[in-house]
């Protein structure tokens, strides 16, 4: 009987501890995805691929609390503020210059939500310099954007990589045909 009680106590303790951990890893994936979709569509001026079967790594709820957050998501999903608007404007202006490089496969959409220079073949030194500056400026704005979105949704800094991954999927969806996309780390395919 005593052993049974001890077992029950241990099970209860484990349950409580796991429950605590579950609360700590709560992540508003649905809100981030909606924000990513809105922002990527706004910047690139196209509707995201509705028929896409790409499953998000963060699509399943990570906790019971997240079910609550999905319900909340139905009411209010858009993430925006003055910083995000300014970053979006800058990225929108930069996109026409980036698009040809994406189409030609010079630049790829990485799995971490950042641009990666894939090939510089056929580019002169001036174009190489311009391309790298463009990519660095875009990546700097993207990192600022991810931080702003995370801050808006009260996501701790340690979880920014998850925001990046969700945004990566949206950038990849809205990238023009010909763009290299990194489906998972190191796994590049051409759209």
């Amino acid at each position, binding site marked *: 009987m005593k052993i049974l009680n001890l077992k029950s106590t241990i099970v209860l303790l484990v349950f409580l501890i796991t429950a605590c951990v579950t609360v700590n890893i709560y992540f508003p994936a649905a809100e981030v995805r909606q924000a990513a979709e809105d922002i990527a569509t706004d910047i690139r001026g196209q509707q995201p691929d509705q028929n896409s079967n790409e499953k998000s790594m963060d699509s399943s709820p990570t906790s019971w609390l997240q079910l609550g957050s999905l319900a909340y998501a139905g009411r*209010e999903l*858009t*993430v*925006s*503020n*003055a*910083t995000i*608007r*300014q*970053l979006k404007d*800058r990225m929108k202006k*930069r996109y026409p210059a980036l698009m040809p490089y994406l189409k030609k496969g010079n630049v790829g959409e990485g799995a971490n939500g950042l641009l990666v*220079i894939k090939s*510089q073949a056929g580019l*002169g*030194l*001036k174009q*190489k*310099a311009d391309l*790298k*500056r*463009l990519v*660095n*400026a875009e990546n*700097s*704005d993207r990192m*600022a954007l991810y931080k702003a979105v995370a801050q*808006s949704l009260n996501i701790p800094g340690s979880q920014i990589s998850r925001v990046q991954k969700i945004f990566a999927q949206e950038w990849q969806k809205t990238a023009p045909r010909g763009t290299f996309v990194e489906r998972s780390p190191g796994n590049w395919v051409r759209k």
Partner: protein
Amino acid sequence: MFAGQAILTFFVAWLLLLPFLWFPGTEAAYASHASNWHLAESGLEPKEVKWDLDSNFNFQDLSGSRDADHAFEGLNLKIHLRIGAREKGKKTWKIDVSWDKGQLLFYPWFFDLSDLKGMVNARGSFSQKGLYVSNFHLQGPVSMEAKGLSLPMKSVQSGEMETLLKNCSINRFSMSADLGKLYDLLLKEPFSDSHPAVSRFEPAGTLTLTTLGKVLRLKCTSDLTYSGQPFVKGLLLDFPYPFLAPDCQKGRISWDELFLNNLLPPGLLDESVHVKPKDKDIPLKVCTKSLTAGPLDLDLQYGDICVNEVCLDLSKKKLALNGLCLKDLQIQKLVSGFPYEMRVSAQAMHAELKGQRLVFSGRIKAELAGGTITASNIWLEPFAPVVHYGADIVFENLDLGKLTKPTSFGVVTGVVNGYIKGLVMSGVQPERFEFLLENDDSADVPKKISLKAVENLSILGGGEGSISFLGYFLKEFSYSRIGISCSLNNDIFVLHGLVKKNGVEYLVKRGFLGGVNVINMNPGGRIRFKDMVKRLERISESDKSKMEIR
């Protein structure tokens, strides 16, 4: 083998092999003449004390790269190198290099050498002790001259720039350049994409660098424009950097005219305002790893801004502004269209850069409409991708009559207190804040609100006005309490009335005998940023709006 001999053999081997190392497509013409040399067991060795090696190279379309970030392409280069010995142990060298075409990438910098034609002439000697450059001359995008540069062989062999700089000596070095061209090449072109503000500056003037003993002196005279408008006229910078000396040096910075209004959003600072330093020179103290500037006292005609000193410590990566003060700034005269008499002052503030954020300690106080506004916890992120700044603001005893009369909002009388907590601004737009305003019941003043103000409050809150039947024929109503809270986060304003009674939320509550109620009819009080902007536009555009009578 002696180090000198090693260098000599390397030079000769390089001269002989270089023409065969080109990349495909490169054309090279090579002519060389060597006298008094033979091939010994230990390598190439001169036969006699006196010897000569004279080589001419003419490269066309030369290309090469170290990695993706460091490369050259299509380079046309002419090199004339001469090495010789006249006495034992001492060898002399002379090199002339010229270029007229090609591209050079040294990321983030890119140079099109077709626009930057130039040549280098240098000569000197070398021995076991070291390398000596007696004369160096560069003519091109910049003009550079160096004399008597001595590099000990041990430092050269270490390959470390810091060791080389510490142990080298130089008699004279001078460089001059067109500041505008240098700025475009080194800052504007490479950094405009990531820092758009860089592209808005256009300096015109000259820059010179000279050495005097162990001090490198930078002098710069310039006129600076921002977005095509003058920003600084007659800028003079004298910056002595003690690169080989332990003692700190005194420099200065000064200007004739500063047009601060052209740097701020259009129309913010009145056009008539000219900013002048009270003292002609701002002293600089330049040490190897730190810089101190100040005191600086700027006369804005209607008040002063002063900083006792700006300290930059590179070893501790620390930037601090000490003794910041604002002396009686008359905002109504400084800011165009500002409708109130407002005086701003601050004393003995201190600011320190923590990460990306410049954090200010101390308070800024403003006198406005018979009351005071105090800003504390002020911060600024000047180097962030989007410039942010913020503060906590408390306002006390503001006379609403004085505040509302000069505006088209409609007149409201009474005295209010309140705060804006956690204000975060992004550029010129608010990003986050918590605002609260309520009237002071203890103030012995009439509490009236005009019909227009009621209508505009209704528009702002998406609510409705409730006026007693008799009151509707009046243009002014009495109230007993005004209480409004408003927060902004994630582009959503949440507006609430502080008075709640029988499930009704009042922005303005009438008294027992009569007056006006303004009720918040918006469930949750949520207003999108865009909607709020539209409502504010409606307030400023329309004089009349419909209101439901209850």
